[in-house]
């Protein structure tokens, strides 16, 4: 399991490094503050909408997945506790 995980992490690191080496743009000036505007160009809005929806959707999916894992682990602990308590009662 650990070996497989190490191989996957190494592959991800190699792929990331090679793709960045190919397409590293020169750094431009970083933005220091945001200026409000009335509305973006319609073309810009169409292109950006899927990205905003994907970002918002990922936040929800990640939260729901984590809550599901907690619920699954809690159910397992409670089931184990019931089995253990039943066993102890039977012994008495």
């Amino acid at each position, binding site marked *: *399991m*650990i070996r497989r*995980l190490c191989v996957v992490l190494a592959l991800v690191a190699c792929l*990331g*490094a090679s*793709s*960045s080496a190919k*397409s*590293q*743009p020169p*750094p*431009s000036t*970083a*933005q*220091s*503050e*945001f*200026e*409000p*505007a*009335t*509305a*973006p*160009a319609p073309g*810009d*809005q169409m*292109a*950006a*909408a899927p*990205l*905003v929806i*994907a*970002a*918002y959707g*990922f*936040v929800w999916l*990640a*939260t729901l997945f*984590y*809550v599901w894992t*907690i619920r699954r*682990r*809690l159910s397992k*602990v*409670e089931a*184990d*506790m019931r089995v*253990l*308590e039943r*066993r*102890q009662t039977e012994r008495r």
Partner: protein
Amino acid sequence: MKYVPALTVAVAVLFVSAPILVAMAPYESTMGLVQKIFYFHVPSWIAMYTAIYVNGAASALFLFRSRPAADRVGAASAELCVLFGAMGLVTGPLWGVKAWGHWWIWEPRLTMALLLWLVYISYLLVRRYGGPGSEKLAAAVGVFGTAVSPFVYVSVNLWRTIHPLNSVVPTLKSPFRPAFGISSLAFLALFGLLLALRVELGRRQAALDALYLADED
């Protein structure tokens, strides 16, 4: 667990009102619609940093005082570091591809944020596969993660970078503030709720382990 119902209501109210305020917030002049990712990208990092400092305090307490409750809080907050860090690392490239034309750039802030996230992945891996005594080793990793986290924050000020500067948040113009404030509160409330649930899970797992030990005796 007594705070969980109140926190659940708070999270629900905040997560319903935040998207409305985000939709009502003005567009940013240079980035347009895609800048709205800012309202959950930055709050996810705020929640991650809160998780980092909770983890650091709990890890230090467990390392030096060996308190089991501190270990449970440490394990719970490390999972939340990974969760909120993943949100930041996924929403950032979705913003970057439109703003910079690239999904990922190996510049100081992005690279250091990824490394910080990997520190907490390693915390969880050490706990899971480290064998007996790995809790102490993981706590040391947690203290290390907390110690290096300020460098990630100041990296945009120290090196030449394409990432927006830290001054964006303190100088945020008033039309952007309500959406950002409510989104940040929503993420912090979500952090509190998930931490309470995960700590309760840890408490029940510890009770189960105690029952198994009593059963063996």
